[in-house]
């Protein structure tokens, strides 16, 4: 896909520079000439949307950091100072706080798209695993970012989650003390979380670089799930085709983002986080942000602390192993009649877990969470390995061009 660049600069100075550092050639081969499958639908714009969100979070975050004070006695007030006295501070903070949610919304759609169209299958395993690493880094970043305003949910969320490490046999307590920088969540914890919250996004950016690199080596998957065979017939140049489509997707996504920021900025937040952290007063329900709820439900579904932690991280490990658990030779769910249904069952299962994670763990909620947790793991460990052996796929088109001419791949968002 990304062979040596054929880019020739037009100006003499451009040629002089290119022969010394071929950066323009890199940009040209990656984002201009790069052949992109003709049949991509709008679900493929979420990669660009995520890049946009990462930049948006870094830009708003860097400015917020200029006004924020990472100290237990001042953090809460410095956030209110941003909301009241910093010019457009309220907008920066709401952009950043809601930006995290939009980032996760986009990443969940991006992951779901990969699951549906089999984007994790050979030769895209490394590409997929790099994506899972980005997802993990995002979770760590978001978790630490939520601690910074030093509200009640910040403090108690941090206490619950860091306490999980104490479940590790033998060294658990020592690790927890080391993470805290003391014997409870306190000023040293807040300080290091701020430091790491500023560091991790740049690590995400680096892994995103690898993710895009790997993508450009193996080429994009597409709704037909067959690779580009004839560049002329199957693909179009990235610019202007994909560039404009991605720009359209980003602009539409920003409408949703702006709706949250300007009209319902606290919808996704917890009102308890407008109460300053108080180590002596535990809130009645400690609930993480919405994007962690399915994992929180799995954590609480297991009746042992260590078990819960293992299963919670195991839920992510399933994604890492997925390329080898799915035994089907066919990538796209379009040609897998049974998988297509089970994909939606799995999505319903995750949404169900998310709902249960928001509820107090009482009565029927516990049983329902256990059933759905069992199903979550069964999907990866039982259903996908067996399904590939028993399912009869529909005939897969010989090429992207053929599927486009037949017009049978575009059940989702054809445009």
């Amino acid at each position, binding site marked *: 896909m990304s062979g040596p660049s054929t880019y020739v600069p037009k100006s003499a100075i451009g040629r002089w520079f290119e022969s010394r550092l071929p950066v323009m050639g890199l940009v040209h081969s990656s984002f201009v000439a790069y052949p992109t499958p*003709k049949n991509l639908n709008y679900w493929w714009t979420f990669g660009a949307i995520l890049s946009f969100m990462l930049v948006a979070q870094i830009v708003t975050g860097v400015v917020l950091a200029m006004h924020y004070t990472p100290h237990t006695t001042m953090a809460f*007030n410095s956030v*209110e100072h941003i*909301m*009241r006295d910093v010019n457009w501070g*309220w*907008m920066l903070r*709401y952009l950043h706080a809601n930006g995290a949610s939009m980032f996760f919304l986009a990443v969940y759609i991006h992951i779901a798209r990969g699951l549906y169209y089999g984007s994790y299958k050979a030769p895209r395993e490394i590409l997929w695993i790099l994506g899972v690493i980005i997802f993990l880094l995002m979770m760590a970043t978001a978790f630490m970012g939520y601690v910074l305003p030093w509200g009640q949910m910040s403090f108690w969320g941090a206490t619950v989650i860091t306490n999980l490490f104490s479940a590790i046999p033998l060294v658990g307590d020592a690790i927890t003390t080391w993470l805290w920088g003391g014997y409870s969540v306190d000023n040293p914890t807040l300080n290091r979380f701020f430091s790491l919250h500023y560091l991790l996004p740049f690590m995400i950016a680096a892994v995103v670089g690898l993710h895009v690199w790997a993508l450009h080596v193996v080429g994009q998957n597409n709704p037909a799930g067959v690779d580009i065979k004839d560049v002329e017939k199957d693909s*179009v140049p990235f610019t*202007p*085709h994909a560039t*404009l*489509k991605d*720009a*359209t997707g980003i*602009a*539409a996504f*920003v*409408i949703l983002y*702006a*709706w949250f920021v*300007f*009209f*319902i*900025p*606290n*919808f996704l937040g917890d*009102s*308890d986080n*407008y*109460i300053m952290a108080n180590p002596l007063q535990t809130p*009645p329900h400690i609930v993480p942000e919405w994007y962690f709820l399915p994992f929180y439900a799995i954590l609480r579904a297991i009746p042992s602390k260590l078990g819960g932690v293992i299963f919670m991280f195991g839920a992510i490990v399933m994604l890492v192993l997925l390329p080898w658990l799915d035994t089907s030779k066919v990538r796209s769910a379009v040609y897998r*009649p*049974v998988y297509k*249904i*089970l994909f*939606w*069952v799995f999505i*319903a*299962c995750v*949404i*169900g877990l998310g*709902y249960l994670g928001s*509820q*107090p763990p*009482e*009565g*029927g*909620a516990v*049983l*329902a969470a256990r*059933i*759905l947790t069992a199903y979550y793991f069964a999907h990866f460990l039982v259903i996908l390995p067996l*399904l590939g052996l*028993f*399912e*009869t796929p529909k005939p897969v088109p010989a090429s992207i061009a053929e599927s*486009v*001419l037949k017009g049978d791949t575009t059940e989702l968002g054809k*445009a």
Partner: protein
Amino acid sequence: MLSKTTLGMIAAGFMGAALLGAPAFAEGSGHDQMKPTRLSWSFAGFFGHYDQAQLQRGFKVFREVCANCHAAEKLAFRNLAEPGGPEFSEAQVKALAAQYKVKDGPNDAGDMFERPARPSDTWPSPFANDNAARAANGGGLPPDMSVLAKARSYKRGFPWFVLDALPGIQYQEHGADYIAALLQAYKDEPPHGVKLDAGQYWNDIMPGNRIAMPKPISDGQVDYTDGTPATLENYSKDVSAFLMWLAEPKLDQRKKTGFRVLVFMAILTGLLYATKKRVWANTPH
């Protein structure tokens, strides 16, 4: 091969379990307190903005009643003259501030001293510290009111909490509704068979129904000079609106900006889409 019907049934079963399971346990966990009534606020909706006269009345209630026990550390006198708030005149705010004393210093001799407040000063707290506040209030700490309207809410439950996010029917005023309802939900006597401890009062809205704050305000307690009837209901609404402004003083600017952003982004999206369509016109895809 597994049949499509079997799998469909399994799928339906799982989704059904998830949905049916929900209400059964949502009921059991709740307190038996009443839900606040959803009021109509000038600051709700797309073009919502604070009602200046209401904020001025609300400020009067806050100043004469709430501020006797509650602090509002993030309120500066100057805020009362800023756009999108009660918008008192600069002169009014200056005169108001001068009625309060604040501690300043140390001076050249190294002594702390008291001086009249200036518009740049923050609202003086009624108690020197939390312990003094507790000691004067039967052990209960009156919460700071700076962001109280955003720190209070109530659960709407499924499916309402999802619908509350949708444009046109969006709902973000839980805190104001909660406070307005709470102020009107005091009962002189607890229900039969319920014994309150000393320093506890019965309130239908407060989670758990036991509240440490005595009924703070009744009909006719604060004089209204603009002809608005001096009723508990009006006090409750006006002070809740004031507290919402106090918690979210940039709401007017936020909604105005938001409207422009949405219009701009809608046009930009339309133009990009049209351009994209044109570029792809001759490419089957």
